[in-house]
Each structure stands twice: as structure tokens, then as C-alpha cells.
């Protein structure tokens, strides 16, 4: 067995367990970042350079920051006193997880895997990926573009503060648009009311 693989796998799994079981939400998020970085390392180890770096860029750079922001924006009191008692749903949950894990592991253990055609690792240059994205995979690429645009608009619309009729009139008058992300705008409105 490859030593590098063992180290990466153990670290990734340990941080995944920590991310799912720690009490402090920020600690969970930081452990999650470690898991994602470990997965990116796995990709790099498997000769998928571009995918590994994209994983690092998207997950560590974007998703982790989003999650951290969400944790800070939704600081609720009951997050800290999340009581852990063994309820029926916990038992059922663990049962389902154990069932899935055991059946998957058994399936893997009993599968005969064909040897790869070539022992040499396949090398995919970034240029080749780009060419393929523009030829064979151009339709999925466009669909992804549409999906990302739709997701962005959707996320903005969902997370937008619903205009409160009491103070939004003033904000609109002063700033021209109710969509101001400016933290000062509310204060401005208050000053105007006084």
C-alpha cells in the first residue's frame, strides 16, 4: 500500500468525522476545509491535476467561506446546547448509515476489477480539457453556465431581505434602490426619520 495514500486517507477521514461530530460550528467548518483539502490531495495523487486544483479553488476558496459566513450570520443560542440523547431517530439514523456502509463495502469486496489497459498513468493536459470542453462537452458546459446563472440569481433573490414597508420607503428615497448592500443605509434612514 502506498504510504502517501494512507496518510492522506487517515487525515481526511479523521477530519471528516470531526467535522460531523464537533459541537462548535466554526470548528466543524474548519475541519470540513481540511477534509476538502485532503480530497483535493487525493485527486492530485491520482494524476488529476486540474480537478484537484479546481477542487481546492472551489471548496476551500468559495464554499468554505460561504459556510463560514452562513454560520456567523445564523448564530442561534440553541446551537450550543444541542442536547445529545439517544432517541429513536438517532438509532434509526445510525442503523441506516451502518446498513449503507456495510452493503457498499461488501459489494466492493466481492467485485472483480479488470486490470487497467495501461499501467502508465493517463496524462491529461489542461489544453486537452479545454479543447474537449469546447467540442465534445460543449452542451453540458452551456447547461452548467445556465445552471450557475440561475443559481446565482436564485440565491440572491432567496437571501434578499424582504422589504419591510415601515422603513424601506425611506431607504428607497435616499438611495434610489431598495437593494443596497450597504450597512450604512439603515442608519441613514433612521437619521432621516429623526
Amino acid at each position: 500500500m502506498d504510504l502517501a495514500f494512507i496518510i492522506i486517507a487517515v487525515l481526511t477521514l479523521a477530519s471528516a468525522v470531526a467535522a460531523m461530530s464537533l459541537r462548535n460550528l466554526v470548528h466543524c467548518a474548519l475541519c470540513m476545509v481540511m477534509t476538502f483539502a485532503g480530497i483535493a490531495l487525493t485527486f492530485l495523487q491520482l494524476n488529476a491535476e486540474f480537478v484537484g486544483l479546481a477542487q481546492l479553488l472551489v471548496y476551500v476558496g468559495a464554499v468554505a467561506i460561504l459556510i463560514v459566513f452562513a454560520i456567523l450570520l445564523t448564530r442561534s443560542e440553541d446551537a450550543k446546547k444541542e442536547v445529545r440523547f439517544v432517541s429513536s431517530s438517532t438509532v434509526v439514523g445510525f442503523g441506516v448509515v451502518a446498513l449503507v456502509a456495510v452493503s457498499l463495502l461488501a459489494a466492493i469486496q466481492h467485485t472483480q476489477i479488470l486490470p487497467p489497459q495501461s499501467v502508465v498513468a493517463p496524462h491529461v493536459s489542461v489544453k486537452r480539457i479545454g479543447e474537449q470542453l469546447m467540442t465534445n462537452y460543449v452542451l453540458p458546459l452551456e447547461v452548467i453556465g445556465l445552471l450557475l446563472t440561475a443559481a446565482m440569481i436564485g440565491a440572491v433573490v432567496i437571501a434578499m431581505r424582504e422589504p419591510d414597508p415601515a422603513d424601506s420607503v425611506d431607504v428607497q428615497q435616499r438611495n434610489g434602490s431598495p437593494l443596497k448592500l450597504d450597512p450604512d443605509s439603515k442608519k441613514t434612514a433612521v437619521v432621516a426619520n429623526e
Partner: protein
Amino acid sequence: MTPLHQYLIFSTLLFSIGLAGALLRRNAILVLVGIELMLNAANINFIAFWRYSPNPEPNAGVMFVIFSIAIAAAEAAVGLALIISIYRHYRTTNVKRIDGLKG
């Protein structure tokens, strides 16, 4: 045990951890993190199969993972927007307490 077996077991364990988090944790953000872990476990499988198996289409695994990462990013953005919106309404992110249908 071939290298492919190792990677498949690794991704299975990761998938199970993510599933456990998504099923057992009460905080909606951690449920989302669990789902992300499950998606990542699937991505490891794609890359492992691409690397170690007889592959007629040379780049299919890499392409699939690129699209999968893009979808996961979109999912995280919309999911977190939903969580923040729900938090504004209920003042909590505990999934056990978000059980009213009436807005």
C-alpha cells in the same frame, strides 16, 4: 487488494460519514456539509475509476468531476441562501424546530 479497491473503500467511508452527518445532526448548515461530503465521495469514485480502469473514453472521468464540482458549488450557494432565509423567519437553524408549513 488493488489500488482501485483502496480508493473505493476510502470513498465509501467518506460517504458514510457524510450520510451520518446529514441524517443525525440538527443544524441545517451541517446537514448541507454532510451532503457536500457525500458529493465529494462520489467525485473520488469518478477519478479513481478514470485512473485505474480500462477506459474507452479517455477524459470522461475528469470531465464528469468538473461538472460535478460546478453543480456542488451552485447547490451550496442556493442551500445556504435558503438556510439564511429560514433563519430570518424562525430565528433558528435547528431542523427539528423548523416544522411548520404555515409561512
